[in-house]
């Protein structure tokens, strides 16, 4: 047998990953479509939904992430505000605008995006590990044998709960971040709280953009994590791979959505967001 030429080998080296990526994209799309169909099937009037599953997932995704999100965003708010005040005082010596600008950023970007990143790690890993271990132990096949569509049963309630709770946690996390930032600015740099806590520059569109981002992150995390869990193969190693891929994939999805929506909003308002 003749050895393949360099061109042939190069084409194979590029072709295989490209093909795998194309297949993965198609499968991710199918999971998204499947989840949306599952949500409609389960949550339409008279739909057949697993009893109590939505409430349970609201609790698991929302309540159980509250402390994690609050503490993380609180600390990030403090660090960011300390750095901002330091740079502002060195560059222009005026800290009167620091609070109003920070609020605008927290509402339209930092609040939902940092919350989304935190949930991508905690919730994404949890969903992928659970579904992945069910996959490798044939529990998903057992569900199918029992007449249950695994996506309807497992992902539909997580999808709805994740959207609701990412929005709620973004509001709570953003408020804590802003509050912690204000406290830092006051204690470290003597910024007047009345100057800092001034919402005059926040427009309804900032709030709409922030909520839209939170909803999109909430939708993306369970879809990406569920997709990774469903691709788990073999045994514990496969579940480990799925969990890692879910954290990386859903974090990347949050960043990509943030970029796309921010660019879209800037374009919509002619660069004057």
């Amino acid at each position, binding site marked *: 047998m003749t050895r393949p030429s360099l061109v042939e080998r190069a084409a194979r080296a590029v072709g295989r990953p490209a093909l795998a990526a194309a297949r993965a994209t198609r499968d991710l799309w199918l999971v998204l479509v499947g989840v949306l169909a599952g949500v409609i099937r389960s949550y339409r009037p008279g739909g057949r939904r697993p*009893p109590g599953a939505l409430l349970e997932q609201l609790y698991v995704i929302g309540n159980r992430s509250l402390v994690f999100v609050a503490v993380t965003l609180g600390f990030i708010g403090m660090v960011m505000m300390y750095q901002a005040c330091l740079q502002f005082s060195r560059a222009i010596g005026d800290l009167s605008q620091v609070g109003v600008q920070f609020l605008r950023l927290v509402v339209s970007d930092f609040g939902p995006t940092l919350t989304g990143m935190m949930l991508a790690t905690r919730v994404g890993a949890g969903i992928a590990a659970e579904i992945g271990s069910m996959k490798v*132990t*044939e*529990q998903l*096949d*057992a*569900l*199918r*044998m*029992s*007449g*249950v569509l695994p996506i309807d049963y497992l992902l539909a309630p997580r999808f709805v709960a994740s959207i609701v709770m990412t929005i709620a946690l973004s509001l709570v996390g953003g408020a804590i971040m802003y509050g912690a930032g204000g406290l830092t600015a006051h204690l470290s740099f003597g910024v007047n709280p009345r100057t800092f806590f001034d919402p005059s520059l926040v427009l309804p569109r900032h709030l709409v953009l922030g909520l839209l981002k939170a909803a999109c992150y909430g939708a993306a995390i369970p879809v990406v994590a569920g997709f990774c869990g469903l691709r788990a193969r073999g045994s514990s190693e496969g579940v480990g791979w799925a969990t890692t891929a879910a954290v990386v994939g859903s974090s990347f999805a949050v960043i990509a959505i943030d970029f796309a929506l921010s660019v879209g909003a800037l374009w919509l308002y002619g660069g004057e967001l």
Partner: protein
Amino acid sequence: MTRPYLAFVDVHKAFAGKPVLRGMDLTVAKGEILYIIGTSGVGKSVTIKHLVGFLAVDRGEIWFDGQRLDQLDERAFYPIRRRIGMVFQNATLFDAMTLAENVALPLRKHQRMRQKDALIDARRRLAQVYLADYADRYPAELSDGMRKRAAIARTLTLAPEVVLFDEPTTGLDPVNARRIDRLIRELSRDLGVTAIVVSHDVPSIMAVADRVAFLYQGRVHTVGTPAELAATADPIVAQFIAGRSSGPMETPGF
């Protein structure tokens, strides 16, 4: 020509380019207990997973009661899964549900039964596998043998015509393994259920099987009664039945 109750016709299946089934032909008669045996990785579980739509053939045909299965999509397999049940190698009970809830699930979903009625029926099924006292326990609280019996009860709730058992006695002690054997025998004798059992357990095969199909190199190498297999002159089958490490059988990886 009447088709057999269940038939695999020239079935091919490969994973990532590696062929597992290479033109497999096999028929199963209604009500019989057929054991599929062979070395690990030869395609025994792969074979039965085609019957419930977990795998799709690359080439070939699968027939069940006059209906061609290899052309069905996922949705079309749902009514088939009411008629063909499967007991998995792991018990595959859902950890968050009690035994009764696990067993009631197929009734609620396939037969749209109310939860209360499904639970009553589930308790009756659990009594059939001697687990009535454990109906409200969670799977984690039970032994492997009990979990396996509960999984069998869950499969039987829909009164399937065919039950596929994927290594039902693997990991069980001899006493529990023989109880599972007895259960398979009773299913066939009392309810007329057709059983296809994937197994390595030679005592179980000899005690329970009506016929045994020996899979080798992606095809059915030999089919016969347990007595015929025990008395075979075929050196490959004889090596497997005797469990000898050396002989003519090619085992990849050794």
